[in-house]
């Protein structure tokens, strides 16, 4: 089981701010590594695109453990939705190789709602 929490429980972060939280895992099998990734992705009518912006890797983790993380939130792109595409942010916890994942959706931008470009 994997869980992700931000400090204070918020999911809105301003560009240039600090995203802090804790990743916790209880694995059924040994993993090569645990990665915590801050990334954006697009979804909509076209081909999906993904950009991993920051990541923290824990090699050969214990089956149960936790790791506090801290990411500097980049200046952009903001979370937005247009007519054809949404750009969304998330932080993800993944057990490698190719194991369980947990994702926490985020809003990145000057306001606590995604930008509407329609």
């Amino acid at each position, binding site marked *: 089981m994997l869980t992700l929490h931000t400090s204070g429980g918020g999911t809105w972060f301003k560009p240039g701010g600090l995203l802090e939280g804790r990743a916790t895992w209880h694995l059924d099998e040994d993993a090569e590594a645990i990665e915590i990734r801050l990334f954006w992705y697009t*979804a*909509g*009518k*076209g*081909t*999906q695109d993904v950009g991993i912006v920051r990541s923290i890797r824990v090699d050969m983790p214990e089956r149960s453990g936790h790791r506090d993380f801290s990411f500097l939130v980049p200046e952009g792109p903001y979370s937005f*939705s*247009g*007519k*054809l*595409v*949404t750009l*969304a942010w998330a932080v993800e916890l993944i057990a490698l190789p190719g194991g369980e994942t947990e994702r926490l959706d985020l809003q990145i931008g000057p*306001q606590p*709602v*995604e*930008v*509407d*470009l*329609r």
Partner: protein
Amino acid sequence: MSARVTARERPADNPFASHRIERLVYRADGTSLVGLFERLEEIGGRGVIVGPKGSGKSTLLEELASALPGKQVVVQLDGSCPRPWQQTKHRLPTPVTARHTVFIDGGERLGVVAWKRLLRTTRAAAYLVATMHRPGRLPTLIECRPDLAVLSDLVSELAPTEAQALEPHLGQLFHRHGGNIRSCLRELYDVYAGRSNFQF
């Protein structure tokens, strides 16, 4: 540029968004993956998945790639690729050995000479599977046929709450897109987003 985008309007929440379509599994018309493996062995480990555009060839190829043993090499050739053989060669390991399984998505983009080069380059590979619009270059592994029942099934999976309202229109949609299911689903994206005359 300030109001909150509602769930129905967000492209990411559209049930026909591409990331949801890509997660669909191939409706194999009674043929299991195990059955396909057996067929692939029967035809010497080299075969083509044949079918028109949007009939599920690429989806099936991906499923095979995730299930077949060996080190997978997947080459995707789309219409935007000006030099398909160069792209293919660039993706293939040197040398291709019996540890490799090679998948070519869009094999019809390789001309006759390039196809012969591909066969020569990959002769040691454990398996070679390509998608094609027409049979003939290798034994046919399976033929994907467009089917209205498959479209109906996929719509029910993607948008269960709208499926009943959409059902009477699917035949017309399927016909208008010439049986190209992927193209049908792309139009349904616009329908759901309120950007098409075809409403439900």
